[in-house]
């Protein structure tokens, strides 16, 4: 059964690596930021799967911290004036 959980985590890592393309390409700041949000959600799922797959129950707590902090960067992004605007491509 453990092998299945690890395989599932590997699959999620691959989807995250695919989503990285969106961070690289953009084109707008919002696109990049929401891709980072995706890594938060997928990261939580990966940590939960690894907690069972590697038999490390402490990883559930790491997943909890991921869940709490994944929104912090997004809120900082939205609240901060002066970051590249959505309208045009930034320099």
């Amino acid at each position: 059964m453990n092998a299945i959980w690890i395989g599932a985590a590997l699959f999620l890592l691959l989807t995250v690596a695919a989503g990285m393309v969106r961070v690289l390409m953009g084109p707008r700041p919002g696109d990049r930021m929401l891709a980072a949000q995706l890594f938060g959600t997928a990261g939580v799922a990966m940590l939960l799967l690894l907690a069972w797959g590697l038999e490390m129950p402490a990883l559930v707590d790491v997943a909890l911290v991921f869940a709490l902090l994944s929104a912090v960067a997004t809120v900082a992004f939205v609240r901060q004036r002066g970051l590249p605007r959505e309208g045009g491509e930034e320099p």
Partner: protein
Amino acid sequence: MGPLDMVSLILVVSGLVFFAAGSLGMLRFPDVYTRLHALTKADNLGLGLVALGLILQAGSLPLVLKLVLIWLLVLFSGAAACHLVAQRALTQGEPESEAGADPARQPRGREGRG
């Protein structure tokens, strides 16, 4: 492998399908707003299914509640964060987006595809 393991395997695999759909939607959808749709719905549902599959393997009640708590946290913080990103995108230009409100116009072939 008992029937319970079978059920949780099915749940986790269907969760993975939704995660794949979320990533694919993020790559294929044409603009920020539609990508946010893919992110909020598909990924949160995927995480919910993975967590549900693991809940069936959890030995104790507090662990079950902890997984539910994690899912709810991700659900609400993710939805709020997506709302904020969408609001920022709307207030800071993205002029073509208003044109999409006209149902007569086909909003295909907008900027930012691919």
